[in-house]
């Protein structure tokens, strides 16, 4: 475990690694070595150019060691009991840490066991702030002198609100960032503001410098200065006098922008539309407060020294509050606004500079060109609410009216059916007639007031509108209509958007269901389906059927535990009855066993082929068997490895379980998934797909190839505007496109809670790794002998010992072997737990994990902390009372507490209140239902109204499954079990024991 930290030292960024403290050869030295640090960075895929140095870090220390910064590295120690002491620490220092900082954004770890510390995260935020300044163009070139050398530099030119944000960065800075120096004598004197400003400048300078090209001729001083702005070190040579003069000239030139910081107000412009019967617009000049942006006063009050009233007094107060010449500043600002906007410039020619009176053309120019430029340059700009920033909110749009020529019910309509489409043109809610459109074409202004609302109209739009409005009915396949309705685009329309598609009867039903305006028909469970579907599951199954019949791929994104498996199986069963052709189901290796068992339970009539393991079928044998199966289950790994083989089968459909496995569109498995040809396509995932824009494309493209365009067009159109600007148009557009494809219900949804039992108990069938399987068989072999050759108490002892050992094997080999060997990748249960906890944590849930072995608890805690980079609580028999209470309190508190609590207690922890948990995992089982329930009930509170998901892990094909079956099946056995622990097992005969311990071939998942 290594926590990455950063420090600012002399303008450079020093990165160091905090590791569990070990006394080293050199006294008072701490932290990871430079080599370890580089290895950690490499593991995280981060390149950091820099040199290794040794610096002195002043850290809170106690008892001769630095206090750990996080519970991940040891018990936290209260600051007041520590003293700040110097430690010699190896760092990697670099002037340019942009790569490193960009790669840690939003991540808790960069690799298992390599955690991003608070200082690094803070610096990454500061770096992004600097990048935001650059993206807004709030930077200016300058010239400065350091010692006797001159340097051309880019500096930040923060606008009104940005100064406050810099102040916020300064206030929030973690002291650890400034705790490094070069001497042992005393901690370095620091100045948080200076450190932040220096850092921001260095980032800004680097970003601008990289894009500055030297001019062709380098003769004049000005051109040489420009070249220095883009050169590696920025050095500018020349006569000191000349350079000093240039520096002053530059400072004076920058002044209109820099002096904004001295004033409490700025100049602003507001566009006011004409009264209902008039046609003159006003652009009013205002003073807007910086600290209080709601304060807006007309500029006219500045010019009239005789002005009276509260507003006039407010203006005088504002003007006096600056630390400079307010009038000069206002006049200067107006002058500069005039260089950006011709309208403002003109206004200053005619009357007292307090407003502009203009016509519609002038207003339009202001809206379209001046407003954005003025705003970026630091002026306030206020536009009418009907202007969206790119155009009027109301635009001309198209409407399609669809009729199916023959009378058919929705279920009978095929997507290839031809339907009639009649085009109409609408504005807002109303349809415009052809003559109205022709009248509009005769007007010459770009902005028109139509029925009381302002609408922007280009000649291209009018022409297209007239063309569509005058067109005759078209005949197109229903499939095209559906696509049109989802993408809001009509074929042949270059400029106008398609606003609404409405249809009658059958077509209308389909469209309304897609748009979410009408519930799809709820179907009864198909024949051959065993067991019951909860009401929400029946709705989900019906939705899957409906959507896939319209030719679209469907993504079922229900919360974990709601039964995506069973809903999918119902659909597969229904389609099997219609057509006997195979469907390919791809899932993580750890889940294959689960699917097999669920299918056997709910759809026992479906022939299932599990394509997995070393002895899986190949070539013709595979093709033959697959053709006769309803479902062929395989893993993501084999999707890639056996791609050729899988291509040889005509698939009816393909289902991806845990579809987040293809979220990165570049990976082999994502490509392989997209390459499968099948009409029916379904993706299952428990993670909130629509919130991760970056991951959305790959899944959407798998479901409906080409639906969201190419990766690069998606990036331009959606990813960048949404990720960097929260662009509301892009968000809305994406939601409209993907909404119909995704069905996601949460266990907290009111409509679901009623259908869920208070305790939603589920069995999770896990597999064994090869190593686990061979250990298992070895234990069984040794046991057989011991048991068969002994009797009485000896035999009892041998049986119980074997049970314990087998439990340990099923948990993790390390538990049986008792060593400190590697953890990852050696246990099927652990792999599945990791996946499930990952999903739970991402959804903001909290989980309890029960195990009977303290050892396993340790292994789990170490592994999960390494993998998730967050603190995982672990309570076991030897935990002192006081510490136990603190842990429980921390888990129960709202907000940022730890999300995972491992418990390894004999009685399952009676008396503990852990009701914040909404997941309970039984990693290994008490075969005593009463004890198990007691443990589960830690998460319960009387009168609660939510459902807790209880997951019971069972290694399929092992004794765990068999015992579970026995307990389920034989109630008397259950009553026998209470009170006698596992003693009843010792009463089984040798033959029964042999059967119990036999390992089935399908237990192995690799």
């Amino acid at each position, binding site marked *: 475990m290594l926590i990455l930290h950063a420090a600012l030292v002399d303008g450079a960024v020093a990165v160091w690694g905090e590791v569990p403290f070990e006394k080293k050869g050199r006294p008072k030295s701490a932290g990871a070595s430079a080599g370890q640090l580089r290895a950690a960075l490499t593991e995280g895929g981060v390149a950091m150019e820099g040199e290794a140095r040794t610096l002195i870090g002043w850290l809170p220390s106690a008892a001769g060691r630095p206090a750990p910064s*996080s519970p991940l590295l040891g018990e936290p120690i*209260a600051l007041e009991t520590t003293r*700040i002491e110097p430690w010699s620490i190896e760092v990697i220092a670099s002037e340019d840490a942009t790569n490193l900082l960009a*790669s840690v*954004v*939003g991540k808790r770890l960069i690799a298992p066991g390599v955690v991003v*510390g*608070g*200082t690094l995260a803070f610096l990454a*935020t500061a770096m992004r702030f600097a990048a*935001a300044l650059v*993206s*807004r*163009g709030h930077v*200016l070139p300058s010239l400065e002198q350091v010692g006797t050398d001159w340097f051309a530099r880019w500096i930040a030119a923060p606008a009104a609100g940005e100064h406050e944000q810099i102040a*916020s960065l300064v*206030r*929030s800075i*973690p002291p650890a960032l400034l705790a490094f120096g070069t001497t042992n004598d*005393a901690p370095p*004197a*620091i100045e*948080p*503001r200076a450190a932040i400003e220096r850092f921001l400048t260095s980032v800004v300078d680097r*970003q*601008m410098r*990289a*894009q*500055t090209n030297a*001019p062709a001729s380098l*003769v*004049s001083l*000005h*051109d040489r200065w*420009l070249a220095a702005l883009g050169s590696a070190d920025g050095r500018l040579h020349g006569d000191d006098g000349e350079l000093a003069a240039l520096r002053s000239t530059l400072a004076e*030139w*920058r002044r209109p*922008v820099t002096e904004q*910081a*001295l004033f409490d107000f700025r100049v602003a412009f507001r566009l006011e539309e004409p009264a209902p019967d008039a046609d003159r617009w006003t652009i009013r000049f205002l003073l807007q407060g910086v600290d209080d942006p709601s304060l807006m006063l007309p500029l006219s009050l500045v010019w009239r020294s005789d002005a009276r009233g509260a507003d006039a007094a407010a203006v005088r107060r504002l003007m006096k509050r600056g*630390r*400079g*010449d307010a*009038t*000069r500043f206002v*006049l200067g600002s107006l002058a*500069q606004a005039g*260089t*950006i906007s011709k309208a403002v410039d003109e206004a*200053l020619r005619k*009357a007292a*500079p307090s407003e502009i009176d203009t016509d519609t053309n002038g207003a339009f120019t202001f809206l379209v060109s001046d407003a954005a*430029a003025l705003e*970026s*340059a630091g002026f306030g700009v206020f536009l009418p609410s009907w202007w969206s920033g790119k155009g009027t909110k109301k635009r001309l749009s198209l409407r399609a009216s669809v009729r199916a020529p023959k009378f058919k019910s929705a279920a009978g309509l095929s997507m290839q059916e031809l339907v009639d489409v009649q085009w109409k043109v609408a504005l807002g809610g109303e349809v415009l007639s052809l003559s109205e459109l022709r009248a509009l074409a005769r007007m010459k202004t770009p902005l028109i007031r139509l029925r009381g609302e302002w609408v922007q109209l280009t000649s291209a739009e009018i022409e297209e509108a007239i063309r569509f409005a005058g067109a005759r009915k078209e005949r197109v396949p229903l499939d095209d209509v559906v696509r049109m309705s989802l993408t809001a685009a009509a074929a042949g329309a270059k400029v106008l958007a398609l606003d609404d598609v409405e249809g009658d009867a059958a077509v209308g039903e389909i469209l309304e269901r897609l748009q979410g305006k009408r519930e799809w028909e709820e179907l009864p469970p198909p024949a051959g389906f065993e067991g019951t579907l909860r009401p929400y599951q029946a709705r989900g199954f019906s939705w899957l059927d409906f959507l896939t019949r319209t030719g679209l791929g469907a993504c079922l994104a229900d919360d974990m535990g709601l039964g995506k498996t069973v809903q999918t199986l119902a659909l597969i069963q229904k389609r099997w009855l219609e057509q006997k052709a195979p469907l390919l189901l791809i899932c993580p290796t750890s889940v294959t066993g689960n699917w097999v068992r669920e299918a056997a339970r709910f759809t026992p009539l479906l022939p299932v082929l599990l394509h997995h393991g070393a002895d899986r079928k190949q070539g013709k044998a595979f093709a033959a068997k697959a053709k006769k199966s309803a479902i062929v289950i395989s893993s993501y790994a084999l999707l890639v490895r056996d791609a050729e083989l899988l291509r040889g089968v005509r698939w009816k459909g393909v289902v991806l379980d845990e579809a987040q496995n293809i979220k990165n569109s570049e990976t082999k498995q994502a490509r392989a998934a997209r390459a499968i040809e099948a009409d029916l396509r379904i993706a299952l995932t428990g993670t909130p797909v629509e919130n991760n824009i970056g991951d959305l494309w790959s899944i959407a493209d798998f479901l409906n190839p080409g639906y969201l365009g190419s990766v690069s067009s998606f990036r331009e159109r959606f990813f*960048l505007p*949404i*990720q960097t*600007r*929260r662009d509301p148009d892009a968000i809305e557009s994406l939601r409209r496109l993907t909404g119909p494809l995704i069905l996601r219900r949460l266990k907290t949804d009111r409509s679901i809670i009623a259908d869920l039992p208070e305790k939603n108990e589920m069995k999770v069938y896990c597999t064994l790794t090869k190593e686990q399987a061979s250990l298992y068989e070895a234990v069984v072999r040794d046991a057989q002998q011991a048991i068969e050759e002994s009797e009485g108490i000896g035999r009892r002892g041998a049986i119980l010992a074997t049970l314990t050992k087998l439990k340990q094997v099923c948990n993790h080999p390390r538990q049986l072997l008792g060593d400190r060997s590697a953890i990852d990748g050696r246990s099927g249960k652990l792999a599945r737990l990791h996946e499930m906890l990952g999903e739970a944590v991402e959804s903001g849930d909290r989980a309890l994990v029960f195990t009977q072995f303290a050892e396993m608890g340790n292994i789990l805690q170490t592994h999960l902390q390494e993998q998730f980079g967050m603190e995982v609580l672990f309570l076991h028999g030897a935990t002192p009372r006081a510490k136990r209470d603190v842990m429980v309190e921390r888990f129960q508190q709202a907000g940022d507490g730890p999300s995972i609590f491992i418990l390894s207690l004999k009685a399952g922890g009676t008396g503990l209140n852990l009701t914040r948990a909404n997941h309970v995992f039984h990693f290994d089982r008490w075969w005593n239902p009463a004890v198990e329930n007691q443990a589960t009930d830690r998460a319960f509170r009387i009168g609660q109204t939510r459902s807790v998901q209880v997951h019971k892990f069972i290694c399929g094909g092992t004794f765990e499954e068999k015992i579970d079956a026995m307990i389920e099946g034989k109630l008397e056995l259950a009553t026998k079990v209470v009170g006698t622990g596992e003693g009843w097992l010792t009463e089984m005969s040798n033959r029964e024991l042999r059967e119990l311990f036999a390992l089935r071939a399908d237990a192995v998942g690799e």
Partner: protein
Amino acid sequence: MAWYRDYFPPSKPIAAKGGIKARSKRGAFATSWWGKRWLDVLEALNIGGRLERGRSYARKGQVLNIDIEPGSVRADVQGSRPKPYRIGIGVKQLAANETQRLAAELAKSPYFLAKLMTREMPQDIETLFDTARVSLFPSRASELRTDCSCPDWSNPCKHIAAVYYLLGEEFDRDPFLIFRLRGLDTAAMLDSIRGAEPEAPAQTEAQPETVPDVNVRTLVRGQAAPESFWEGSRPEVDLTAGTDRTPAPLLRRLGNLPFWRGQQPLLDTLEPTYAAAANTALQILASEPLSL
């Protein structure tokens, strides 16, 4: 003296490097009415071919530097001799009572003040000057004193003419320069009109606050939780990217540097830099979403 004019053949100047190049490539030098008025005086002096040579020198960038001080202009011009010629233009400054009268008239009209700051002089400002009985422009040659170290005895010579034309261009850009030349300190005048506090120009940029000796120990004094040392608190910053519609808004707002000597206007040279940098900044910002 007439015979000198025919005696000196036109000489070829040594090419000047890094000199000030006139913006005007052809035709008139000043476009504003006051810039033109300034040049009127020069052109009325009737120095013939030297005006033409002066324009050509100004366009070629032979004028190396220009300094405007109250009452005088000093400049260096590269001629046909290795050593550049020194030019001086002296202008009669406004008397104290003239300045006061002007200030009084301006005080009555903030509109004119604003106009001046937009670098324009409305035609009607002359009425203001008339009322104040002040004339802004030299109306006669006798109000100007010009000298040049070149061997041409004609006064003004082509070197002086070159400087004169460039001044016309700069007056276009900043009418306050004429005021400055006439000895009128506009900033002081505005101050006295408005009664505002004097400004602190040198400190508009870095504002270092004097802080008592701060180090890590002082920063954590009195804190209990380890987080206050290691994590700090959450800064309130807005990481929304700018739109790409106007790449270099501040450059547009500020315009060119005075007496810019670069090959291309500043905005033209640096606008691509701003656009490209904004694009890479966007990539950095896109790596993690703003919370939705």
